């Protein structure tokens, strides 16, 4: 394709190259390449001493699609989803070829896997909880992240915060997922459609957990469902999360909020936490804790609060 030949021109921009906008006239100086995706190359740039990430590509439509998504996120009040968008323009090279680009906030961080290395088990849960919080916000706005994978996650510090980067797959709810990666795609694992709904992201999130547990991605094999189940059973790190993950796979969560609530109550429940951490000492108790499903735990809480309420009420009435 012609695109491939011209793409080469921007895949290796030298340090010091000046990119000047055709429309806004803003100048950026290239510092180094940060990464390369299907539709463009990301460079670390500098403008007036401030660093920024600049994504340049050949496919104008895809670059603009991403800009559209980032713009929608800017409109969201309060929480920031994804990096903030700073500039959109075209660069005309000295050879007269036009390349579209956009500039976004530069997020300095570490990959999720290297961040988690050497840290306690509880960190995986905490990171997933943060991810669910962002997803909840996104889903509430009528969007699905789509291409959720470890490559698109970054942990910024301090304090440790998981951030979503690369919004190329972000799709309006109800539409066909724009971009996906097989390992994280529920369609590939025969666990549902490629229509954008909140549970599509939740499935991908469980695959992030599996990838972290195994340190790599794996093939689906001849029987994808069984492969997944086996992989889950053989990952000790994921043991406390098993019921949660299985519920996602069974399509049990219609919204990220529900999963977040379950994960949050699991992480903050002291008995279960202990049980998950202290492997050898309290085997029997751990088993007990696992058997208690989230639903029944909830029922108990409701039951107690009803009794309490009744009790208070009768005192007041009396």
């Amino acid at each position, binding site marked *: *394709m*012609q695109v491939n030949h011209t793409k080469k021109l921007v895949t290796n921009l030298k340090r010091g190259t000046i990119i000047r906008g055709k*429309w806004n006239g803003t100048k950026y100086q290239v510092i180094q390449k940060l990464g390369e995706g299907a539709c463009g190359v990301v460079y670390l740039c500098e403008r007036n001493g401030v660093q920024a990430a600049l994504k340049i590509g050949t496919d*104008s*439509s895809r670059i*603009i*699609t991403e*800009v*559209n998504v980032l*713009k929608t996120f800017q409109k969201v009040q309060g929480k920031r989803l994804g990096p903030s968008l700073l500039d*959109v*323009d*075209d660069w005309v090279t000295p050879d007269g070829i*036009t390349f*579209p680009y956009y500039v976004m906030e530069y997020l300095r961080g570490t990959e999720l896997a290297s961040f988690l290395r050497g840290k306690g088990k509880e960190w995986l849960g905490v990171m997933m909880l943060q991810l669910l919080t962002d997803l909840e916000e996104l889903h509430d706005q009528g969007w699905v992240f789509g291409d959720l994978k470890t490559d698109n996650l970054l942990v910024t510090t301090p304090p440790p915060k998981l951030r979503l980067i690369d919004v190329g797959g972000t799709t309006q709810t*109800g*539409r*066909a*997922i724009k971009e996906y990666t*097989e390992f994280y795609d529920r*369609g*590939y694992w025969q666990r549902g*459609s*490629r*229509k*954008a709904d909140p549970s599509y992201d939740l499935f991908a999130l469980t695959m992030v957990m599996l990838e972290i547990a195994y340190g790599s991605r794996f093939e689906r094999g001849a029987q994808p469902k069984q492969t997944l189940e086996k992989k889950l059973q053989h990952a000790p790190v994921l043991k406390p999360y098993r019921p949660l993950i299985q519920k996602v796979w069974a399509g049990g969560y219609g919204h990220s909020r529900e999963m977040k609530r379950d994960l949050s109550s699991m992480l903050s429940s002291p008995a279960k936490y202990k049980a998950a951490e202290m492997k050898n000492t309290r085997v029997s108790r751990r088993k007990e804790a696992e058997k208690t499903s989230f639903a029944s735990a909830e029922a108990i809480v409701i039951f107690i609060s009803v009794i309490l309420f009744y009790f208070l009420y009768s005192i007041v009435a009396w």
Partner: protein
Amino acid sequence: MKKGTLKQILLLTDGCSNQGEDPVAVAALANNQGITVNVIGVLDDDQSEQPDGLEEVEAIAMSGGGVSQIVYQKALSQTVQMVTKQAMTQTLQGVVNQELKQILGEKQTFEELPPDQRGEVMEVVEDLGETCDLEVLVLVDTSASMTPKLSTVKEALFDLSLSLNARSGNNRFSIFCFPNKIKPIQKLMDWTPELDGISKVFPKLASGGITPTGPALKEAMYQFGKKSLFGSMKHASEPYEETGY
């Protein structure tokens, strides 16, 4: 803009055509009739370098107004859906570009618009891509060297229907293969909205060393015409009743 139907031929092959008309010329003809031709060249997983003749893959797609890609079997599923979607966007963008030219003058194309307006146009293109109807005729080269790759092809096509059926627009697929001893192409699956039945359709037989890609493409072009003529009579009330066999 009116909601239309996009027509695509997806050619899956692993080699160069060696009989009959030049497929590049036939692809140009198809494109002229509103059919986009996409081509995927399939390599063996252990093939280290691109074999001779695969440049044709790019040439056919280019003259057919479509997208081409040369891939290893392993990446076939993801490539097939990507190529199809990319070609859809490309075609729709072409349509929008035409409209833009009419409104804004001959020289105004999507790429030359200021970024903000480009963004708005892209939203329209995306809406169209989600809602338009799509017809994909899959044309599979089943010559001897392709035979071991056919199970991967099947998987990829099933995956394609998974991707496309996630859209709101309607899809219709049909599958043809070539070469055939008597006809330029052989029908494996008639127009159908789902590719569920795909596991049963591929023939086991290999058909020797000839690869008449040009004649096969030409015959494939007419399958769209046939169908719509047939369709306009039969499906007047229930357009998506027919499920093939």
